[in-house]
């Protein structure tokens, strides 16, 4: 393993953007062009009207991630991009598990296992039941291995969503990276929430 690989760790990139067709590919290209694999990508509206939020997870060195974030932020429709290590964010992934209702009904132990793993039933039909759980990768993985022997029919897991731990810490971080960041917070957020009052498409 090279030094580069040792330095590599999971980073959560948070990007605030205009809601615009084509932007996803513009952002994805920034990674693919450098042959960087996106491990998880989630995009959804944010708490601010007409602003979307991307959560992107990659495993890279901080040096690379910092440069990537600058390239992302350079895109016209991107308002702001940040990156954080796993320690700096609260993150969750949602998983759904489909198992045969008969098996579940017969094996009470399964129900107990589910309870112990914080899962809950979202659909119970005659032929199958769907359980849901949220958590970190190891947690959702754990339930797969538990359910597999009982005839797991189908499994799906969502992309990661992450929230930056505390705003104070976030602010501190911003100041810490101030040298590397072009703008000041006030300016960046100046037009947020003003919607149609500013030139938008």
């Amino acid at each position, binding site marked *: 393993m090279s030094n580069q690989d040792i330095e590599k760790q999971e980073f959560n990139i948070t990007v605030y953007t205009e809601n615009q067709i084509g932007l996803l590919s513009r952002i994805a290209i920034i990674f693919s062009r450098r042959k960087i694999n996106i491990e998880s990508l989630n995009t959804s509206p944010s708490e601010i009207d007409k602003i979307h939020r991307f959560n992107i997870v990659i495993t890279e060195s901080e040096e690379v991630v910092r440069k990537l974030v*600058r390239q992302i932020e350079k895109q016209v429709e*991107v308002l702001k991009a940040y990156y954080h290590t796993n320690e700096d964010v609260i993150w969750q992934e949602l998983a759904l598990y489909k198992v045969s209702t008969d098996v579940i009904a017969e094996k009470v132990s399964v129900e107990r296992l589910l309870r112990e793993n914080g899962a809950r039933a979202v659909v119970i039909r005659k032929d199958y039941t769907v359980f849901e759980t949220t958590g970190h990768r190891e947690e959702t993985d754990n339930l797969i291995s538990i359910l597999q022997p009982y005839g797991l029919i189908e499994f799906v897991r969502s992309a990661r969503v992450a929230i930056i731990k505390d705003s104070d810490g976030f602010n501190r971080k911003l100041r810490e990276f101030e040298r590397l960041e072009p703008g000041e917070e006030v300016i960046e957020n100046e037009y947020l929430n003003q919607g149609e009052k500013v030139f938008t498409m």
Partner: protein
Amino acid sequence: MEVAQETLTTPAPTTAVEVSGSVALLEALIVEGVDTIFGYPGGAIMPIYDALFDYNDKLNHILVRHEQGGIHAGQGYARTSGKVGVVFATSGPGATNLVTGLADAQIDSTPVVCITGQVFAHLLGTDAFQETDVINITTPVTKWNYQVTDANEIPEVIAKAFYIAKSGRPGPVLIDITKNAQIQKFNFEGYTQCNHIRSYRPKPIVRTQYIQEAAELINQAKKPFIIWGQGVILGSAEQEFKAFVEKSGIPAAWTVLGAGAIPTEHPLNVGMLGMHGNYGPNVLTNECDVLIAIGMRFDDRVTGRLDKYAKQAKVVHLDIDPAEIDKNVKSTVPVWGDCKETLPMLTKLIDEKKHTEWLNTFNEYTQKEVEAVIHDELNPTTPEMTMGEVIKQLNEITKGEAVIVTDVGQHQMVACRYAKFNKTRSNVTSGGLGTMGFALPAAIGAKFGAQDRAVVAIIGDGGFQMTLQELGTIMQTGIDVKIIILNNRFLGMVRQWQELFNERRYSFVDIQSPDFVRLASAYNIPGKRIDDRAELPAALNEMLSNKGSFLLEVMVTKENNVFPMVPQGCSVAEIRLK
């Protein structure tokens, strides 16, 4: 690049007028100050061309011979005029022919707006005739692109396109307009230029703390060294730059695209950086104590091996694009901002100095280079002519006043090394992408962008054959472009590498050419071919005094190399004189 401070508006119509998307587009272009459009029509852009028929008196459309020629012309126009180059192309093959030029404009930060026609919106994604996913194809090579499917969007989108293309770090923008949107009538309420997009900050905020830190470093430096790039020209900061250089007394060297920002003969101008740059500035990069990089992006052709680049120096990097700072070379003090704003702030805080001894070190290296390379290149005793002596003669006649447009190869490096520039916006070349075929169309555009200046294109026998069909554009427009083909009967630069690094295995670099002079004559362009040194001054004079375009083919030494050279993978200090 000047950013529009005020917002212009078309004379507000008392009531909104009903116009087609095509008419709205052309009205928008007029408000943006567009006078020249380079383009090529086709089915999917016919409504726009139909509307253009009535705008003949306001918009000068230049029919090029290939869309690649169109966008290179747009780039040449932008580079000499400082305005936005505008290009029209039809859908599918017309649009894909723009890709090389878009990539070129993107890497060289050239403001161009391309308008492409697209199939009807209801046909999108159906593999309709000449439908291509232009937006996705051009995404990696544009600063911004957008597809318009409704005429109502046109004014706002065009306003954004121009604002984005020219503000901050300039770049190419492509707007793809479906045919229905070109035809569709809508209520046009006048056109307002854009000067703000909420998610887009063209200029980073200048931080005075870093200006102060930079000034302190500069004031303490014993061997400071300035390296500048095109950012100075793009920011129209030539005066501010000169003031900074002169007050600080610091020797300054340029990247290929920075050439001309201060005159070649300026006493503090110590030459060209990079792979085929001058000896002194390359070697001394690794000796300076403070390196001040202005509007340049540390391209690998400039830095050579990064791990051995200026390791001893503290680096002050001034750039408008925050992503450039620390991208390749870590800066000690980053100065984000438009150098037109940051340079005067810095100049105010620095001490007036003369670094005479340090400057002399550069001159000593220059002497070495003159003896080893320059003298013989410019005053050869060989029977055949060298590229260098052609440029030297040209300098004597044009007195550094001409716009020099170069293609890519040995002639490009020779021209950039030896051409004298007294004026800014005089060196038009494909720096970042290295696009062969760039020069002929770019020279056409350069002339439209600077009609009162002499424009001389210097092209290799290989590159000329990539876009020579644009001779047709010259013929039809009657534009005055002087063309010098430096014919070494080889794809010279590749041959040089093969000679130096592949044991002279000349694999497919031997290129045959047509009779260029007769070819030009078929396009009604007078020309001459010379192979005797004695004819050179007269031939150049004939070319330059000819009213209208002229093609001069100069036969030069077949196997001549461009030196000095930093071999790939070497440090700039390992630059070879032979």
